[in-house]
């Protein structure tokens, strides 16, 4: 397995505006480095404001970091221009939490899937339709959904459709930013199983995307990923194999997330008042 995507020492600041007085810079990423192997499954976990979504945006070339480098297929993504980015973006795809706002509400499921293929201008109409039906099958959606309005689908179906669209251009990296968080647990389980199927180790490394799951839910991240990165206040505070993070966590932030995922009986009376 070769290294696919390497981020080194990423720094990203956002200006936080106030009604009166000067703006204050918020350092969302403060020297973050990650390495993603081809076909790997990696979970990036942390509480709100830990910088995990900013990291996802930088890796997907949606945001440019203020400093640091992102190497992907021998190119530094922080230095390439817009036209080069257009070539790279199809290979690194992003799926968001809110699938309801991810599609044009007037599109049918089929149009949603054909749109990225149209932009690539490589297939004709019949081939696009064929590929669209293929994609539906790959994410476990029935073919008769093809002509339904995207806005009529259930939450779980929409999130599968979002994953199908992300897969349309055969990306090398699939980044999911809290893509399971808004779903009911029974639906979460189905989508999680889909991610496990897509990244099935039985397939050749070249044929399966690397999965990057951004989440505050450590139990789910542990189920899907082989390695886990824990973030807090813009920094990576712990990383390691899933077994190590779950079984032998060292950092307080990791233990806090672990505690939140394992239920909280008996902890009420031990903790100081909030």
């Amino acid at each position, binding site marked *: 397995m070769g290294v696919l995507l390497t981020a080194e020492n990423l720094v990203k600041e956002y200006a936080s505006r106030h009604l009166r007085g000067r703006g204050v810079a918020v350092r969302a990423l403060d020297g973050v480095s990650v390495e993603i192997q081809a076909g790997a499954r990696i979970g990036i976990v942390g*509480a709100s404001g830990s910088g995990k979504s900013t990291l996802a945006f930088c890796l997907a070339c949606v945001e440019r970091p203020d400093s640091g480098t992102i190497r992907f297929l021998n190119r530094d993504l922080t230095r390439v221009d817009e036209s080069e980015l257009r070539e790279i973006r199809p290979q690194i795809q992003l799926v968001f939490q809110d699938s309801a706002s991810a599609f044009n509400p007037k599109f049918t499921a089929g149009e949603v899937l054909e749109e990225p293929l149209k932009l690539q201008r490589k297939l004709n109409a019949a081939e696009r339709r064929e590929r669209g039906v293929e994609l539906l099958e790959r994410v476990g959606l029935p073919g008769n959904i093809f002509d339904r309005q995207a806005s009529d689908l*259930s939450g779980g179906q929409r999130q599968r459709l979002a994953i199908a669209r992300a897969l349309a251009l055969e990306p090398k990296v699939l980044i999911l930013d809290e893509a399971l968080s808004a779903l009911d647990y029974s639906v979460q*389980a189905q989508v999680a199983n889909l991610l496990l199927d897509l990244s099935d180790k039985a397939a050749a490394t070249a044929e399966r995307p690397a999965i990057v799951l951004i989440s505050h839910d450590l139990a789910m991240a542990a189920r899907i990923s082989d390695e886990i990165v824990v973030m807090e206040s813009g920094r990576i505070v712990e990383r390691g194999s899933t077994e190590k993070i779950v079984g032998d966590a060292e950092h307080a932030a990791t233990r806090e997330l672990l505690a939140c*995922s394992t239920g909280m009986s008996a902890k009420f009376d031990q903790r100081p008042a909030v």
Partner: protein
Amino acid sequence: MELLLDVQNLSVRYRPPGGGDVFALRGANLQIARGQIVGVLGESGSGKSTLAASVLTLLPANGVIDAGAVVLQGTNLLELERDELERVRGSKVSLIFQEPGEALHPMIRVGEQIEEVLRAHGGESKEARRGAVRELLDLIFGGEAERIYFSYPHQLSGGQRQRIAIAQAIVCKPKLLIADEPTASLDSVTRREIVELLKKLQRERELAILFITHSAELLEGFADRIVVMYAGQIVEDGDAKKVLKAPRHPYTEALLKCRPTLGLGKTVREDQRIPVIAGEAPDLSARSKGCAFEPRCADRMKICCERTPELFEIENGGKVRCFKFGG
């Protein structure tokens, strides 16, 4: 235990403009005792939010209450006039929602917004109101209370805003707080802090809480009782520990298994997949004569598609809507 709220045989239907009525709540019975925390566990479309909204008759315009009563300390809230109902809302029963930001005015300091609730319910002097708000903020925020009082909503985090919404909801000292997915938009750490705050308020103010959620693990160690809903019906009702440890209804059992737990073996690939509930979510516009969960149930029997099971009492004081336990 003194009975506080008694929801009797409540049925609610939505009438969408295009026709095709949706039967969102089908004969729900629910009792809450004083100072008790009852968790309502269910997925999208189970009727849990409809149950919450109908207690205070805050249903959307196309929602119709077909039958039933909501009795709060002897008074049926469904029979009250509008002005009488407004006195109950906020002072005896209040409500918090998923998005606290949307419940707050963006341009008014949050302390004043809490005070506003006291003013709307009349009575006390300005000083007394201010004192009551300060006292409440001390309880909720400790040392930060002063700064929080003078903050605007955008200066606060999601968790802090939800705590402000809670302060607004309880400043008139209601007996019952209905919390409809109050932590769904928060991360897991903040989520737990909110739940701990509610537990503290229950203890110190004898506040009963109806806590609506789709996350079973939030209810562990928090709820006294759990009510599980599926397709507009209560399918299981019992002591929280017993429902979570040994669920009786096949749906509850399947739902709890969907949630991955930590520390499972990851080496064998088959083990890594999460158990799912087979089949589709129920269609609420149809009324089948059998059990609503029957098409997805692993334990189905012949009787399940012939009659709708009632809530059968089981030995430990719980109730289960399943023919495995009676009929």
